[in-house]
């Protein structure tokens, strides 16, 4: 039987693009090789996907083959002594946390949602609030399985002389299917976090706080209000934290309180509602400023408390925009970006600012670089939204920065190629049997 089923409307997390795919959902690793060959024989170029949290088109492969890896989500081995866990690529961070936290272990790097697969995390070389300490997840991958379109599975380690390991870390699934991975975990003494929230009034204060916090805090991040201009430009709340030395080791139960049942009307996210939200958030942040002890979920995964939160942006979806600009020009560039956003009146509901440390990223296409990253999301209003992002592109490019492919659904090929000088080197490792909408778009010369 043909393992690929037609599926007419696969959307990514941002929801802007919707396209038909031929989808296969294997249940066993032993089926993968045959599956890849079958897809190739039917003329599909392939792409593996996981929980589909990529916002734009890096996880889409319209009219081609998609291998849904979420059925390959088994734990393979866990050795608490060496702190290594080996799992199938479709295993989620959520499932891993349910197993490891009670053993006094934690993921060395985690993004802002735990509903990502290990394969997806590696393919996007994700980072977290502790980038200044631990770098990206790719630095913690000890081995991985990679299935190429010829049906052969390779066992790769960081010292792989062919360079394929470095291409696969952050390689957006284009070097083949990541089938399993072994990750080194970090020890924790409790499942609690000691957290401090510090409201700040303008951008300069953010940079001072960030510089002062990096030595004493494992995790730093801040939220900023990007609708307020003038005096209040760049006001926000700086959050820093450490794993607590004492306290319960039992993991949090799921924190998903409610799930958006349907798309909200597109108008729900407007400058007034976002402005009101931001005012409330600032007020709440001031109220809660100071130190507190919280669980892991509220600290690492606040947004996971609303299932399918992307539906708040309605049928037209939203764009994410995440940039990094080099440390030397980070103050000016970030200031200019916030000014452009505030002037446009197109607020971002979730605006996150963080300084990256200088821990080198292992992948050829890894996003993080020393400097400051700004993550924004914009309701899709068509041209005006694209124009604003175009203005931001100009600032980022001028600063010598780049954008995060996992968040992108529209950057120009020139913008991508300027930001990722190693892209042509990377292209040599792309398996000709694989493709994505993103790659077709940005690899054009």
């Amino acid at each position, binding site marked *: *039987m043909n*393992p*690929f*089923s037609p599926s007419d*409307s696969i959307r990514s997390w941002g929801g802007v693009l919707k396209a038909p795919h031929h989808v296969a959902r294997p*249940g066993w690793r032993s089926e993968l090789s045959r599956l890849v060959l079958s897809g190739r024989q039917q003329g599909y170029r392939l792409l593996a996907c996981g929980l589909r949290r990529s916002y734009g088109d890096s996880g889409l492969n319209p009219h081609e083959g998609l291998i849904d890896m979420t*059925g390959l989500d088994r*734990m393979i*081995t866990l050795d608490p002594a060496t702190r290594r866990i080996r799992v199938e690529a479709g295993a989620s961070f959520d499932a891993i946390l349910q*197993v490891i936290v009670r053993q006094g272990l934690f993921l060395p790097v985690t993004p802002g949602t735990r509903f990502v697969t290990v394969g997806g995390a590696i393919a996007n070389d994700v980072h977290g609030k502790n980038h200044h300490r631990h770098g990206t997840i790719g630095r913690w991958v000890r081995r991985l399985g990679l299935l190429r379109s010829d049906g052969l599975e390779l066992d790769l380690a960081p010292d792989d002389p062919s360079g394929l390991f470095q291409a696969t870390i952050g390689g957006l699934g284009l070097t083949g299917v990541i089938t399993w991975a072994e990750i080194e975990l970090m020890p924790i003494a409790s499942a609690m976090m000691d957290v401090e929230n510090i409201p700040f009034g303008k951008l300069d204060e953010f940079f001072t706080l960030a510089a002062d916090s990096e030595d004493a805090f494992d995790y730093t991040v801040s939220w900023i209000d990007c609708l307020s201009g003038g005096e209040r430009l760049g006001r926000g709340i700086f959050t820093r934290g450490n794993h607590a030395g004492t306290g319960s080791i039992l993991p949090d139960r799921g924190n998903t309180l409610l799930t958006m049942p349907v798309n909200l009307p597109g108008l729900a996210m407007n400058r007034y509602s976002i402005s009101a939200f931001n005012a409330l958030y600032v007020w709440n942040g001031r109220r809660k400023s100071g130190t507190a002890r919280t669980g892991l979920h509220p600290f690492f995964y606040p947004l996971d408390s609303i299932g399918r939160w992307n539906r708040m942006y309605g049928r037209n979806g939203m764009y994410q925009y995440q940039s990094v600009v080099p440390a030397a020009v980070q103050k000016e560039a970030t200031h200019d970006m916030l000014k452009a956003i505030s002037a446009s009146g197109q607020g971002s509901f979730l605006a996150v600012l963080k300084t990256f440390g200088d821990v080198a990223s292992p992948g050829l296409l890894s996003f993080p670089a020393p400097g400051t990253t700004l993550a924004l999301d914009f309701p899709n209003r068509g041209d005006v939204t694209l124009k604003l992002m175009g203005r931001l592109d100009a600032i980022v490019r001028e600063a010598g920065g780049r954008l995060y492919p996992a968040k992108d659904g529209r950057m120009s090929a020139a913008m991508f190629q300027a930001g990722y000088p190693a892209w042509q080197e990377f292209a040599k490792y792309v398996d000709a049997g694989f493709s994505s909408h993103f790659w077709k778009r940005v690899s054009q010369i």
Partner: protein
Amino acid sequence: MRLIVLGATSSIAAATARLYAADGATILLVGRDQDRLEQTAADLAIRGAERVETALCDLAAPQDAQRQFSDFSARIGGVDHVLLAYGILGDQADAERNLAAAEDILRVNFNSATAWALAAANLLERQGRGSLVVIGSVAGDRGRRANFIYGAAKAGLAALMEGIAHRFADKGPRAVLIKPGPTVTPMTEGMNRSGALWASPEQVAQIVYRRAFRGGPVAYAPGFWRIIMLVIRNLPSFIFNRMEI
């Protein structure tokens, strides 16, 4: 808690076993592919199962189900819950012409399942407690041209489980039939899975697990299928027979 899973490499069974594993259960996985049983066992052990054993057995061809089932039970020191989750969809078009294929569908989904269900029921009745959960299908609620041979086997299973539940009524153990709607499992590979009616094995597993402990003898999974099938069962033939479903 000690669980025996008959057909342990099915996606619904494996997803259900994970819920037991998270509660520290002892689990025996029965199936006919040793490699897959072992992969499943390793996963469940890491997810918190107290102990996981595997038993290789072609469930579609029981030799002496009563004795074999007693052996299963002895392997993990007795049994509290039994989940019967194997089955095949078969190829309806082929089975209508090729009667051996039709008999295969019945033999796997009904005859052999009956042997195992009765063997389990006898043991649970003797010990006066425990729970037997069998995976049926909404296809058993009304025969339709797309899959009525499979549906007939599942309808038979429904009557069997009703009877066992009736027999258990004043004796302690529980007997439950779960009727999943279309689920994203290897059984439905190749079908167009777009649309809101498709469920994941994890969604079905939640219901299987919950119903092993409490509730009536029949459960649809997800629950909305109860309403849909109520309508479909009650459609007059002159309407139903004109529908392309």
